[in-house]
C-alpha cells in the first residue's frame, strides 16, 4: 500500500464502542487527513455513524455508551479534553436538517455567540459562511426570516454554514444528503467541494457514487470493523478485499471480510 503523505489531523486507534452489551465498534483505526474529504462507507449497522459521533464525543450524550481506545486531535487525546472545547474544533452536520427556530442570521451566528467570540464582523461571518455553503444567493435578502421557512435542502446548507461559521478544524457530516432531493444533493456536494483544502471533512454516506465524487479517502467498514482504508481512486480501481470490491460495485457484500484486529497500514 502507498504511503499516505498527508498529515493526519485526527486519528482513532483501537476504538471500541458499545451500547450496553452490544459492541458496535470492535477496534477501529481510522486516520483523518488534514484538508481532505474522508468518506466512511459501509452497509447499515456497520457502526459508521457511531464512529463519526465519537469523533466529537456526541457519544457522551448517551449514558449507556462506552468508549474505549484512543481518539486524537492534533496528537492530543480527545478523551481528556473538555467536550465543549473539542466540539468547537470538531463541528457536525446532521442527517436531518436541524435549523434552530430562529432567523437565518441567528442560526449562522449561534455557534459564534455560544463560543463568546468577538462581537465584531458578524455580518462578514454570516456572508462568508453562507457563501461557503452555497446558499448566500438564495437567502441574502431574507437573513432575518426564520430558517424554518426554507426548504429541506436550503435548511441543510444553512446548517453547514452554521457549522463553518465557527471555523472548526474538522467538519463531521452524517449522511447530510440523506433526506434531500437530487438537486439539493448536488448543491450540497458543491459546498463540500468548496470546503476541501480549507476544512477537513469526514462524511458518512450510503451513496457510493457520491463518495467517489467528493472524497479523497474512503474508509470501508463492515460489522464494526474497518475493512479497508485508502485513497478513493485506488480503492475503486484496486481494492485489497473482496468485500470492498463487492460493496463499491453494487453495495452488496457477498463474502464477509476476515475479521482483523485494529490494523494500521505498513508505512
Amino acid at each position, binding site marked *: 500500500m502507498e504511503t499516505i503523505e498527508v498529515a493526519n489531523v485526527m486519528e482513532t486507534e483501537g476504538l471500541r464502542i458499545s451500547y450496553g452489551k452490544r459492541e458496535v465498534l470492535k477496534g477501529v483505526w481510522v486516520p483523518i487527513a488534514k484538508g481532505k474529504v474522508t468518506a466512511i462507507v459501509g452497509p447499515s449497522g456497520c457502526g459508521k455513524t457511531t464512529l463519526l459521533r465519537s469523533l466529537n464525543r456526541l457519544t457522551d450524550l448517551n449514558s449507556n455508551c462506552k468508549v474505549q481506545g484512543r481518539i486524537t486531535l492534533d496528537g492530543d487525546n480527545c478523551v481528556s479534553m473538555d467536550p465543549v472545547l473539542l466540539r468547537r*474544533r470538531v*463541528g457536525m452536520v446532521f442527517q*436531518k436538517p*436541524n435549523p*434552530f427556530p430562529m432567523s437565518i442570521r441567528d442560526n449562522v451566528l*449561534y*455557534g459564534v455567540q*455560544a463560543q463568546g467570540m468577538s462581537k465584531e464582523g458578524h455580518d462578514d461571518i454570516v456572508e462568508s459562511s453562507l457563501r461557503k455553503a452555497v446558499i448566500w444567493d438564495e437567502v441574502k435578502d431574507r437573513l432575518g426570516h426564520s430558517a424554518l421557512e426554507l426548504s429541506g435542502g436550503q435548511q441543510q446548507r444553512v446548517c453547514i454554514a452554521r457549522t463553518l461559521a465557527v471555523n472548526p478544524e474538522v467538519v463531521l457530516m452524517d449522511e447530510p444528503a440523506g433526506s434531500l432531493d437530487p438537486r439539493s444533493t448536488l448543491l450540497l456536494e458543491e459546498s463540500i467541494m468548496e470546503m476541501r483544502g480549507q476544512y477537513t471533512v469526514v462524511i458518512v454516506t450510503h451513496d457510493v457514487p457520491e463518495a467517489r465524487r467528493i472524497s479523497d479517502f474512503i474508509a470501508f467498514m463492515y460489522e464494526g470493523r474497518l475493512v479497508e482504508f485508502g485513497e478513493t481512486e485506488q480503492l475503486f480501481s484496486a481494492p485489497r478485499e473482496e468485500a470492498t470490491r463487492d460493496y463499491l460495485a453494487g453495495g452488496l457484500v457477498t463474502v464477509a471480510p476476515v475479521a482483523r484486529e485494529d490494523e494500521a497500514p505498513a508505512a
Partner: protein
Amino acid sequence: MTDSVGSMTDAVGRTSDADGHGLMSRIADNLAGRERVTLGLPLAAAAICAAVGLGALFFNGVDAASLPAMGLLGACQLTAVATTYRRTASLDRRATLLLVLCIAATLVLFVAPEWMYGWNINGIIHHSVLSVPLLLLMSTATAAHSVRALMGASPSGRDLSLYPWLILPIALALIAYGILVGDIVASGIGGLNLNLLTTVGASAGNGYVPGFLNNILGTFLLMFMTLVIAFLPGVGAGVFMAEYPGRLAGLIDFCTQMLRAVSMFVIGAAAFGLVHLLSSWKADDLLSQLVRGSYSDSSGQTLPEHGSFLFAAVILGLLVMPVIAKLTEEGLRSVPREIREGSIALGATEGHGLRRILLPWAAPNILTGLVLAAAEANGSLAVLVFLGVIGEHGVGPLSGVTTLDYSIFEISWGPMQYTRVMEQYRLTAALVLLLLTMGLTVLAMLLQRRFATRYRGSLTSN
C-alpha cells in the same frame, strides 16, 4: 387525577390511530356488542344516595348538589366492579379503588365535620369545602375510566366492551357539574351588578355595605404574588427534572409530585400552625410581622393581622409550583433530539443552549403553566380559610388576606354577625370566582395553541 386524564387521551389516540376507525364507530361497535346487564344494584344504590342527597337539600345548597351526585358516581362504580367481577371472575383493581374512594369520601363527608367542630380550628370546616374537590376528583376519575372502557382500551387487555353502558357515569358526572355550575350561575347572576364589583365592602354603623372590590383586588394581587414566588423555583425544578436526570432529579420529581398529592387543607393547616407559632413566639420581630401582616387603624397605630398576603402567596406558591415544574419539564422534553444535539455540536455550553434554544422552545408550555397555576391558585384560595382573616383593611403585600374564596366561606359560615347581610351575595361571589378561573383556563389553552404554532412553526412538519 391528571394521570387518569392522561391515560384517557392516550387511549383515544391509540385506538383511533391503530385501526383507523373513527371514535364514534368504535363506541357504536362496543354498544352493539352489549349484553343484558343487571341494573338493579346500581339503581338501588343510586336511589339511596338520592334520598340522602334530597335530605341534605333541606340543610344547605352546595351540599345538596354534590352529595347525591357523589352517591350516584359511587353506585356506578359499584356496578362497574360487580359486573367486571361477574364477567371475568376477577376484580378490576382500578375500578375497585375508585369504588372504595367514593364510599370513603361519602363517609368522610358525613362524619368529618363533626370531628372538626371539635378541633375548633379557627372556625368551622364545612363539608361543602371538602365535598366539591372530592366530587371533582371522583367524577374525573370515573369519567376517564368510562372513556377507557368505551374505547375498549384496557390496561390488562380485558374485553371491556362487555360493559359499554359505562357511558352512564360520564353523563352523571356531566350532570353533577351541570347542577353545581347551574346552581351557582342561576342564583348568583341576580346579585351581580357593577356596583357590587366596584365597592369596597365595609361596616357602616350597625349595618354593612356589600362590595367585592377588595376581594377581587385581593384575589388578583394574591395570584400575581403567587406566580412571582412560584415562577423561578417551578421553572428551575422543571429544568432539573428534564435536563439532569438522575437520583437528585428523581427526588425533586418525587417531592413535587408529593406536594401535588398533599391536600391543600393540610398545607393550609400547616400554614395556620406556623402563623400561630410565630405570634406566640415573638410578636414584634420582622419575620413574624411579614407572616402575620399588619394594618394601620384610624389613629395611625399599627396593629397585627392574622396572616399577610405575602405569607399566603408563599403557601399558594408552594401549591402551584408543581404545575409550573411539570409543564416546564414537558416543554423541555418536547425539544427534538436533533435540535439539542445541533446546539451541543456547535460547542455551546449547556447554559447557552438552555437560554437560547431550550427555554424559548418550552416558553409556550411555561406560559401555559403560569396561567394554569394562576387558575389553580385561584381555585385553591380556600386554603386561606385557615388564615382566618377578615381583611377589611385594604389590599397590600402586608395587609390581611381578602379573596373571593374567603368571602364565600365567610358569608356562608363565618362567625361574624354582620356577614349575614351578605348572605344573598354568596353565590354571586362564587360566580365571579368561577368566571375568573374558567377564563384563566381558557386563556391558557389559547396561549399554548397560539405560541406553539408561532414559535415552533413548520419544524414539526418537516
